[in-house]
């Protein structure tokens, strides 16, 4: 099943697995992977690692947010609107879907009264405020360090 064509990296994702965590990624037109030596290619054997190497920094935060699905977050937008809600889902562009939302700051935005669920475009997010106890900073640091090393290669 052809899933999505990412215009930025020209990667074609064929989701052979039924879960999101094990998509098989076939990269077209990504020079560093195509010309990689057999030695380095053997380290990219698992589908998830291949996905990570192909999408690098984007994938890191996408995975991070996926691990936070179901938690309560506050999203502050670039237009200074702050929305509190439960993280329902996130996508590769870091677009966020929140359920059960409420505008945290004084409600000078009355038009949101009858809205329970919303979709927020990734490009307009300024901050995503997370509860401190939900985030494993050690894990995040290690993952970021791995990404930085892979980027250098």
């Amino acid at each position, binding site marked *: 099943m052809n899933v999505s064509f990412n215009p930025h990296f020209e990667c074609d994702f064929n989701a052979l697995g039924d879960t*999101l965590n094990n998509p098989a990624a076939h990269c077209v037109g990504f020079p560093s992977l195509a010309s990689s030596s057999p030695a380095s290619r053997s380290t990219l054997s698992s589908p998830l690692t291949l996905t990570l190497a192909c999408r690098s920094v984007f994938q890191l935060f996408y995975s991070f947010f996926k691990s936070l699905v179901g938690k309560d977050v506050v999203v502050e937008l670039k*237009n200074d609107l702050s929305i509190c809600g439960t993280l*329902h889902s996130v996508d590769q562009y870091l677009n966020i879907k929140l359920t059960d939302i409420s505008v945290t700051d004084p409600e000078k935005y009355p038009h949101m009264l009858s809205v329970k669920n919303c979709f927020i475009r990734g490009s*307009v997010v300024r901050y995503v405020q997370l509860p401190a106890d939900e985030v494993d900073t050690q894990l995040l640091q290690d993952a970021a360090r791995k990404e930085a090393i892979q980027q250098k290669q």
Partner: protein
Amino acid sequence: MNYVPGTASLIDDIDKKHLVLLRDGRTLIGYLRSIDQFANLVFHQTVERIHVGKKFGDIPRGIFIVRGENVVLLGEIDVDKPCDTVLQQVSIEEILEEQRLQQQAKQETEKVKMQVLKDRGLSIPKADNLDEY
């Protein structure tokens, strides 16, 4: 925005009544008919809702195609949830007049602020076109 389960997709929001907030501050309400991977939206029976204080006014706009980059937020309108309790609907002319006055007042304060900042050698860039890409 793809068909992999668990990701944020607008597919389930099609044909439902939605409210979209645009980058220029406008609010559009209508039935979402079509989407794509850039969050470009096609709205049907669109109404532009203008809010000034506790009053609001609706201007019927027909069919709208919104370019994805201008979308801030898209929210599904719950028809069951009571919403107009604090808000008072007024006629189009009245709300446009209120909006004009509000814009005028805002521009005045903005001008004064800019002048004060300029006197101190500072300038704050406007937020809405910070990252054109």
